C-alpha cells in the first residue's frame, strides 16, 4: 500500500469487475487514492487529486472515457471545497461510499434500459456496433419484456467485440446475426434502427466510440435511419472534438513509416476509436432520459457553471 499507483489501481478495478465502466473505475481509483493519501487540507486534497488525474490520463492510452469520470470527481471535489467549504465532510463521504457509486453506475444502466425500452418496438431489426454494456442491458431488458426484435451485430474488427455481443445475445434468446463491418452499407436499408454505445459523449452531443461508428452514422443518415446512442450520463465529457483527428490517440493513426520489409510486422494500423458528430445522432438514451444531442451540452454546462 506504500507505493500507491493510480494507474494500477484503476486497471485492477477494471479487471476485477467486468461490469465496471472506465469512468467509474477512475472514480473508484481516485477514491482509493484519497483513502491512502488521506490529505490534511483542502489544498492538499485538490492537489493530489489533480496529480492523480494527470498521471492516470497520461498513462492510459485510451483516456477519453476515464477522463469523464475524473472530470466529475474533480468537479465534485472543487465544488464542495469552494462552495460549501466542507471538504472534510466531502472526503469522508467519498471514501465511505465508494461501493455506492459503483452500484449507482449499475443502476443507471438499468434506468437506461427502462427508458430505452420505448425506443424498441416489435418487428424491429436493430443494428448494433461494438460491445457496450449499456446497449446490451437495454437489449436484454427489451427481450425480457417480450419485445420481439432481431439484431444484426457487426463483427467490430479488430477488437472482436461483435462476437462477444453475438454470444451474449444468443444466450438471451434474441435472434441475432453477425456481419462483417464492411457489409453495413449493404444491409442498412433493411435495418430499422441503429444502437451504439459510447466511450465518451462530447460537449456537442457527438460521441467517441469504437472505430466504425462514424461510418455507420454517415450511412444511417444517408438512409434516414434513426441512430441512437446508449450511454450513461457519467460518460459525458468536456471535450469538443471537431472530427476524429481531434481525439487524443495513442499513436498516429496513419503510419506510413512501416515499409513492410519484415514479414512479422503487423500491417494493420489505424485508429481504434472515432468521433461521430451530433448531426448523425438521432437521440441519446441516457439515465437522464432520451436526450437530443444538444441536451448533452446543457448537462455539461450545468455541471461546470452551476
Amino acid at each position, binding site marked *: 500500500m506504500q507505493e500507491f499507483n493510480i494507474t494500477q489501481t484503476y486497471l485492477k478495478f477494471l479487471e476485477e469487475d467486468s461490469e465496471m465502466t472506465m469512468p467509474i473505475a477512475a472514480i473508484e481509483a481516485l477514491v482509493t487514492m484519497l483513502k491512502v493519501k488521506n490529505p490534511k487540507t483542502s489544498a492538499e486534497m485538490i492537489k493530489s487529486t489533480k496529480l492523480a488525474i494527470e498521471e492516470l490520463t497520461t498513462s492510459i492510452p485510451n483516456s477519453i472515457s476515464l477522463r469523464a469520470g475524473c472530470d466529475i470527481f474533480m468537479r465534485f471535489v472543487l465544488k464542495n471545497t469552494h462552495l460549501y467549504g466542507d471538504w472534510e465532510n466531502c472526503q469522508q463521504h467519498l471514501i465511505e461510499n465508494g461501493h455506492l457509486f459503483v452500484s449507482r453506475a449499475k443502476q443507471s444502466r438499468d434506468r437506461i434500459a427502462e427508458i430505452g425500452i420505448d425506443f424498441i418496438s416489435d418487428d424491429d431489426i436493430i443494428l448494433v456496433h461494438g460491445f457496450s454494456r449499456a446497449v446490451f442491458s437495454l437489449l436484454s431488458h427489451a427481450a425480457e419484456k417480450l419485445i420481439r426484435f432481431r439484431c444484426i451485430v457487426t463483427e467490430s474488427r479488430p477488437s472482436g467485440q461483435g462476437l462477444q455481443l453475438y454470444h451474449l445475445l444468443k444466450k438471451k434468446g434474441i435472434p441475432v446475426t453477425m456481419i462483417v463491418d464492411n457489409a453495413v452499407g449493404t444491409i442498412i*436499408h433493411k435495418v430499422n434502427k441503429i444502437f451504439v454505445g459510447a466511450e465518451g459523449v462530447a460537449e456537442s452531443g457527438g460521441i467517441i466510440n469504437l472505430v466504425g461508428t462514424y461510418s455507420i452514422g454517415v450511412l444511417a443518415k444517408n*438512409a*434516414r435511419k434513426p441512430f441512437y446512442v446508449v450511454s450513461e450520463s457519467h460518460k459525458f465529457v468536456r471535450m469538443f472534438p471537431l472530427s476524429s483527428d481531434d481525439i487524443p490517440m495513442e499513436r498516429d493513426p496513419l503510419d506510413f513509416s512501416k515499409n513492410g520489409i519484415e514479414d512479422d510486422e503487423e500491417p494493420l494500423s489505424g485508429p481504434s476509436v472515432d468521433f461521430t458528430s451530433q448531426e448523425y445522432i438521432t437521440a441519446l438514451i441516457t439515465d437522464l432520459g432520451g436526450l437530443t444531442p444538444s441536451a448533452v451540452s446543457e448537462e455539461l454546462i450545468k455541471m461546470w457553471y452551476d
Partner: protein
Amino acid sequence: MTGGAKEASGKETNTEKTANAQEGEKPLSNKELKELKKKEKAAKRAASKQASGISIEKQQQQAAAKREKKQQQRDLLAAKKNKAADPVKHDTKKSTLFGHLETAEERRASLLAVSSAITSTGTSRITANGLVLPLLATTPAVAVSQPMSASPLSSNLSGSNTNLAGLAHSEDFEAHQMLNSLSLDESSSFVPGISSVIPNTMTSQFTNQQSIASVKELIANREMLHPAITSLTLDYAFYKIIGSIPRCIAMLEAFQLVVRDYKTPEGTTLSRNLTSYLSHQIDFLKKSRPLSVTMGNAIRWLKQEISLIDPSTPDSKAKKELCDKIAQFARERVQLADQLIIETASQHIEEGSTILTYGCSKVLTDLFLHNAINFGKNFQIVIVDSRPLFEGRKMAESLRNQGLNVLYVPITALGTVFNMDIKYVFLGAHSILSNGFLYSRVGTAQIAMLASRRNIPVLVCCESLKFSQRVQLDSVTSNELADPNDLVTIDSANPVQRRNNNGFLLQQFIKEREAQQKEVENSSKQNNKSGSANTNNATADEGKNVKDKPILAEWEKSPNLHIFNIMYDLTPPDYIKKIITEFGSLPPSSVPVVLREYKASA
C-alpha cells in the same frame, strides 16, 4: 367605356369579325381602347375585302351582334353602378405569382367565342324564348357523324345550351325567369351569339391582344374547320380526354378523318396546302388547352410526312398513304412502345412488394394488370390521388375491378403512407424535358422528392414520344392553368363529372347574372360575412346548385383572393432513378442523347 361601344356600333360596315373584337374591348381601359382602335382600322380594311361576299347569314349575325352590343351596354351600365372599378379589378386580379400564365378563363373565353361563332352560323335564328335553342343540335358540326367520340358536340359545347333548355323547362325555372327578366325590352334578345352564351367574366378576360387576334382569325376562317376537330377540341377543353397519350391518339384519329375528308383546292397541291390546312385545325385545338408534348411531336412528324409526299401522287392515294402512316405511327410509338416498356418494367414488380404510384397513367395501369394477371404476381399498389381531377380513382377502379390489391390515398396522406414499406415509386409522365426534368401531373414532384429522400427508387415509365427538346427550370414559369373554379367546390366528386351533370357553363352564367341582380338589390350585403351564409340559404332550393355555392363561390369578386390551379409540375432529375422507355432503361441525363439519336424517327 360606353363611348367606345357607341362608336363601334356606328360602324355599319364592320363584319362580325370586328364586332367580335368589340366584344373583347368592352372591359378594357381607355388606353388600351385607343390601341385597339388602330388595330380595328387595319382589320376594317382587311374586312372590306371580304365584305363583298357577305352572306345573308353574316348580315344576320351582324344584326345579332348589334343587339348583343346593346345588351352589353345595358349590362355594363348596371355593372358600372355597382362596381365602378371593374376594369381595374381585372388588372389586379392576376396574381404576381402566376400572372404570366394564360388563365383557364382566357382560354375558355376565346374557345367559346370561336366555337359559338362557328356553331351559330347558319342557325342564328332568334327564337321566341331567348336562350332555348334546340336548333343548335342541327348545326353542321353536329350533323356530321362523329366516329371517334361517343359524345359529340351536343353534350359539351352546345351542352351548355341544351342543358340550358332543359333547365329552363324544368328544375331551374327560377333561373330561367331571371334570365328572361334581364332581357325585358326585347323579346328576342338572347341570340346564340357570343355575349349571350359566354358569361361576362369570360368575355372580359379578353385583355390579351394576341388572343383577340387569334380569335378573330379563327372566326374568319371558320368554314375551314373540320367538325372532328371542333368536337375533339371540346373534349379536350372539358377534360373528357386527358393524359398526354390519349390526347395524342385522339388527335391522330381526328387527323385521319381530316385527311380523309380533305379536298385539295384548285391551283395548289396536297403536299403544299394540307399543312396549312392542318395548321388551322391545330390552332383551334390549341384553344382548348395548350398542346401536349406528344401532340407537338406527332404534329411535327405529320407535317414532315406531308412535305415528303411527291406532288405528283394522286390525292386519293396520298390521303390513303397518309392515313395508314398515321395509324402506323400511333401503333409504333405508343402501342408497341408501351409493350416494350411493360416488358422492361415488369422486373421491378416483385412478389409481395408494395408499389406507389400517382394519378393515372395508361402504361402503368397496363403494367400492373399485366403483372397481376399474366404473371400472377401478388403485390400491393398504393395509388395517390389529388384534387381536383381525381385521376387516380380511374386507375384504382380499373385495377380493383381486376382484383388487384389497391390502396387509394389522398396526397395529404403521404406522410403516413411513406411509413409503409414501399419498394418502388412508379410514375407516369406528361413529358420529359431535355434537361432531364420530368414534366408531369402536379404533385408528382412532391412524391418523387419524398420517395428519394427515403431512398425509395423512383421509376418513370414514358414513351420516347414524350421527350421534348424544351428546357425548363421551375414549374411556375411555363405551365397550364386549369379552371380555378374546379377547386371551389369541396366534395370528392370529379369536376368533369360535376360539370357534365350540371351544365357548368350555364351555372356560371346564372351565377353571374344572379350576382349582378343581387348587387342591384342590395350592394351593401356583399361584404359582410353573413352574406355568404344568406346566399347559401337562398340557393338551397335550387338543389344541385347548393354544392356549387361553397365558401369561395364568389372568389372572383374579392381582389385579394386567388385560386391557383396548375396542371403540371417539374420534377428535378435528382429524384429520378431511372426512366423506362421503349429503348430500355435510361438515366434522366440521357434524354438529350435519345433526342439526338432518334430525331430522325421522331
